[in-house]
Every structure is written in structure tokens, then in C-alpha cells.
């Protein structure tokens, strides 16, 4: 059973995520107005915001420890925050700075934090096999760590996810798959791409338990996730969970959603899991003051992270040649670095290839 403290923790993570993305959105639009240019401004590239998904990240990750692994998809911020990824370094990464989690090489879709075993990536269902592998390592090493792979409902048709279910099941691995069903895969509604309304049914064909949480009620997510994660931690094998969430915005920034019925947008906006959890907290006797305090703390933390990130230095161009390998070969694979006369006069960067 969820405790009030846990509900407060989830609430804090959810409002952090929501406010974080509101702020990111502002920053993202800098330099992109009046005409939207994806490559302009301090945060270029695609940006997939998760407003409406927060209950999933919070309700699942609250059961996880730092030594548990999480892989997230292209819409990762709410999950990263709930998993405890360093917010400053994550923000610096999104701003493409040298002190970012990945030294500016990954960006918003590729946040890697080894301290809390978090990674996300940009290709559909791509994180499922590595999560299975983390679970395999835990089992081999006889620890009670678990792994969780998050994916969208659009990813349940992708081979890599389906293969992962089977591999996890046959080897009884401590891994939980969490489908975030926001009804849409970019412009494609779920019923255009699969006949199965309840994505957790995919588990049936592999003899794995599957359960759907039909609303984005963080407490309901908490309960389903608790069961699945404890099952995994106790060595009883994998599970599949589908969580109904909502996409409150376009697929990525700049998506005008011309394909999406007005009513559907309205519906997604009405049912806000954050408000619902606030009501639950109030029902449990938590005062509005306390909620305000949580929100303020969250906002402060976010503002601080963003302010910090913006002060960070841009990566030196020469660092582009670093990190291809952990153990760079003694010689370079190409004469890379010769693209600019600057770089080729710098004798150093060639070594790290």
C-alpha cells in the first residue's frame, strides 16, 4: 500500500517533470520565433515533451534503487527525473554543453547517467534488449537488482520489444516492461496499427503476466508496478505493464497536430494526473500549504538547473573526436580532424580515436 510520504514523493517528481518541461519549452522556442526553425536557438534538434505522462515515470521509479537499471525511449524526461538522474547535468546535456551528462554528444534523446543506471535512446523499442541484458547481469551476479524498460504503445509492434519479452520470459529475468499508452504514435492512433486495445495482452503469447492500468492515476500505477517489480526482485521473473497516459502536446515541438481531433486534445488535457494526485493527497489530509511547498521546491530546483546549464561552456570542437572508444587505438582510423584547418593544427585530438 502506498504511503502518504510516497505519494508526496511521486507528487514532487511529477510537478518537477511538468515544470521542467514547461521551462524547457520556453528555452527551446528561443530563436525559433516567429518562424519555427528546428536548428535554431539554444536547444536545437527534436524535443519530445512528456506532459501527461508523469504518473508513469513516478509510479514506477519510486520502487527502484540506484542499482536498478532503467531504459527510456525518446520521451524520457519524466522518467529520468523520477529515476534520479542528475538534473543539472541532464539539462546541460539538453543545452549541448561540455559538462552535460554526455559532454554534449547525446542531447535530449540520449541521456546516459551511470550513477543511477539510466539510459534513453531514439529508436523505437531499442532500450528493451539492453534492459533484458542488465537483468541478465543481475541474475548472473546474484544480486537483487532489476531492470525496467519503458516504451510507447506505438512500440509494441516492433520486433525488438517482442523478442525481448520472450527472452526475458524463458530465462526468468528480473525485468519489467512498461508501455506508456498515450493513444498516439506521432499521427497514428493505436487502432490503426494494432487490433489489440490492451497492449499488455502482448505478454500472453509468451507466458508472461500482463496488466493494464486503465488511468493515469499515479497510485494505481504505483500498485501495479510494485507487484511487478517485487516479483522481479524476488526472482520470479518478468512482467509487462501498460499504463494509460495522455499526450498533452504535439509529438515533438513544432507538431501542429493537424491530424488530431480537437476533442481528443481536449480530453487529454482535462484528465491531469497531477491534479488527481493532489486531490488524493488532500484527501489524505495533506494541506495545500504543503503542496505549495513541494511545488515551490520543485520549481526552484528546475530553475536552478536550467540557470546552471545555460552558464556551462559549449564543448570545444576538438572533443568531437573523443570517446569513440574507451580504449582508443594508438593510431587514428582516419585522418579525421582535418575538416577544419584549426583542428588539424591541433595535434591532440587525433589520438583519441
Amino acid at each position, binding site marked *: 500500500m502506498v504511503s502518504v510520504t510516497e505519494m508526496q514523493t511521486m507528487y514532487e517528481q511529477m510537478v518537477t517533470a511538468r515544470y521542467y518541461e514547461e521551462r524547457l519549452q520556453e528555452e527551446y522556442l528561443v530563436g525559433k520565433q516567429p518562424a519555427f526553425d*528546428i536548428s535554431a536557438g539554444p536547444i536545437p534538434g527534436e524535443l519530445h515533451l512528456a506532459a501527461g505522462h508523469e504518473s508513469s515515470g513516478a509510479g514506477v521509479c519510486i520502487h527502484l534503487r540506484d542499482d536498478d537499471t532503467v531504459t527510456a525511449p525518446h520521451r524520457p524526461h519524466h522518467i529520468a527525473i523520477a529515476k534520479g538522474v542528475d538534473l543539472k547535468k541532464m539539462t546541460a546535456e539538453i543545452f549541448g554543453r561540455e559538462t552535460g551528462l554526455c559532454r554534449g554528444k547525446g542531447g535530449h534523446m540520449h541521456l546516459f547517467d551511470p550513477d543511477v543506471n539510466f539510459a534513453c535512446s531514439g529508436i523505437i523499442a531499442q532500450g528493451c534488449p539492453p534492459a533484458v541484458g542488465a537483468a541478465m547481469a543481475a541474475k548472473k551476479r546474484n544480486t537483487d537488482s532489476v531492470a525496467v524498460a519503458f516504451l510507447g504503445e506505438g512500440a509494441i509492434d516492433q520486433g525488438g520489444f517482442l523478442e525481448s519479452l520472450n527472452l526475458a520470459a524463458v530465462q526468468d529475468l528480473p525485468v519489467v516492461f512498461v508501455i506508456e499508452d498515450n493513444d498516439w504514435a506521432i499521427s497514428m492512433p493505436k487502432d490503426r496499427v494494432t487490433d489489440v486495445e490492451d497492449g499488455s495482452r502482448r505478454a500472453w503469447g509468451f507466458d508472461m503476466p500482463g496488466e493494464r492500468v486503465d488511468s493515469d492515476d499515479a497510485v494505481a500505477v504505483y500498485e501495479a508496478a510494485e507487484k511487478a517489480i517485487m516479483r522481479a526482485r524476488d526472482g520470479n521473473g518478468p512482467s509487462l505493464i501498460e499504463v494509460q497516459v495522455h499526450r498533452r502536446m504535439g509529438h515533438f515541438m513544432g507538431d501542429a497536430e493537424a491530424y488530431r481531433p480537437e476533442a481528443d486534445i481536449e480530453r487529454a488535457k482535462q484528465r491531469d494526473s497531477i491534479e488527481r494526485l493532489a486531490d488524493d493527497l488532500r484527501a489524505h489530509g495533506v494541506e495545500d500549504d504543503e503542496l505549495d511547498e513541494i511545488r515551490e521546491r520543485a520549481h526552484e530546483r528546475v530553475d536552478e538547473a536550467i540557470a546552471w546549464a545555460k552558464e556551462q561552456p559549449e564543448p570545444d570542437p576538438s572533443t568531437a573526436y573523443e570517446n569513440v572508444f574507451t580504449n582508443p587505438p594508438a593510431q587514428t582510423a582516419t585522418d579525421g580532424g582535418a575538416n577544419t584547418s584549426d583542428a588539424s593544427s591541433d595535434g591532440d585530438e587525433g589520438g583519441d580515436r
Partner: protein
Amino acid sequence: MATESRDYTEATETDRELTMSRAMVEAIAWEMRENEEVFYMGEDVADYGGIFSSTTGLLDEFGRDRVMDVPISETAYLGAAVGAAQAGMRPIAELMFVDFFGVAMDQIYNNMAKNTYMSGGSFSVPMVLTTAVGGTYNDAGQHSQTLYGTFAHLPGMKVVVPSTAYDAKGLMHSAIRDDDPVVYMFHKRLMGLGWMPSPPGPKTGVPEEDYTIPFGEADIKRHGSDVTVVTLGLHVHRALDAASQLEDDGIDAEVVDLRTLVPLDTETILDSVRKTGKLLVVDEDYQSFGVTGEIIARAAEGALDDLSAVKRLAIPDVPIPYARSLEDEVNPGTDDIAAAIRELHE
């Protein structure tokens, strides 16, 4: 194979200018009207009109049966395109970003590309695989590659890379009419999208009527006598800009736009190299074991005695990094090209 040596400006000698995206779609729509067997499938190609506007308006004209959204199951639907093509239809199937090839490469290179050969010619696979390529907008290592060399290396696929609206339309007509599988790689930065501004080059005059551009004919986009620059896609425009910059300094660069990688127009390259003696190859793919190596090797095989200097610019064997300063560093820019031409000229 002698290339029809068309001046770069010639294509613009028509009133109507189109973006590359509109030129592509015009050819597709024309072929769909002519031939009921042509259909288009991919993710977000119906209502959305293609993430990079590769199918804008097609759903309205042709309906859901011929402009089909499909599940995010690239193996299944690209392989289904092969099956439909072998049954005699003419599918166009879109891989949203070329970077995603890895989830479906078996169907692409083992079925699509090889079935004609392995059946001894008793089956054909008349399909087009369209896919968006390229970087420059900071989308990092899984959304910014061109992978030109990866596709050109494996036999059985024709590989097309347009750099202008004029070429895009003609090459698309050729691709759909071709009885073989064609990989049609369009560079996002050239499509003329509102949200990702193109340089001025790719928007050209485009005839209203249908026309084809034969595969295997490179196009000399700028004639010059001092240095040969062989390139394709986005970098055609960067090379042209670099060549303009150098004009004032009396350096006269020739810019060869390959247009198709398979078949490759070796003769046009050799003719140019024989004339200039100096070869620069510019590529947006990874440097080693790819396009630049192949072009230099062909020049060395075919014109070694005429060759006095070679050089290449490409992504220096690192994944494409996210941050602007890093991506700019690894993706050859106009200045890099100008500097390299200058160096070769010395």
C-alpha cells in the same frame, strides 16, 4: 558514360520553382494516377503527409488504400513491400529516417536487393524505398546519418541521392518506373521544409510534365578546370558555394554531383580528373570504407597518371554528435571545402 553536361542554371529556366519536397511528391502523384499498382506506405505518411513532407496531399487524392500508415514494424512492412513488388505491384515504402535501417536491414538487403539475382531473374522487385538522410540540425547520432556507403556497398539496390528539385522529380519518375529496387535518399535539409530552412540551391525550376533522369549519369553542376570536386546531396550546394568563393581568387573548381551511387558514373569522374588532375571528394557519410574511398579508388584505377593530388572530406569516423559546435566540426562545411580546394590547387 558521357553525362549530358547541363549547366547548373539551366534547370531553372522555367517559370515555376518548386521545393524538392513538392517536386518529389509531384512525381509520385503523377505515377499513382497513371498506374494503379503504385501505392505508398510508411509511418505517418497518410494524415501527416510524411514527417519530411514526402507525401503531402497524397492521402486526399488517393485515399487510405493507396497511402497507408503502417505499424512501427519496419521489418514487416518493408518486407511486405518486397512481397507486393514480387507480385507485380509497385510499392513505395518509406523508412522515416535512414538511421533506422538496422531494425529492418535483413528484408532490405537480403530480400529486396537479392531476390532478383537469387531467383536467376525469374522475380523482379520493382519497389522504391524512400528515406530521409542527413544532419545539420542537431538531432544527434541516431537521426543525422546519411549511410550512403552502407547502402551503396551491398549489391542489388540502385541508390539515388537528388540535390535539386529538378533532379528529385526526374529521379523519382525513373525510380518508380524502374523494374528494380531503388533506394531514394532525400536530404532533409534540401526538402524546403518550413521548419528546417533549405539553402537556396535545391529550389529550382521544375517542368510541369513528367520526365525521367537516367540512373548512372552524374551531373556537372559547375564546370571548372582547376580542381574536381565530387560530391552529392547537401554537399553539392556547399561545394558550389565554396567554388563561388574561390572564383575571385582565380580558382576554377568543377563540381560533379553524382546523383546516383549505384550505378556510379565513373566516366564523368575520370573525364573531370583527367582535365584537372586534382580530386576532392566530399561526403556526409562516415569517411572510412565508404563513398570517398571508392571515388578516390576509381580515380586511381582509371586515371592514376593524370592524378597529381587527392583529398577527401567526410564525417571523420565518429558518430554524429549533438551539440552544434560538435556537429559543425564533423560535418564538412563550405569553408572546409574551400580550404581543401585551395590546398589542392597550391
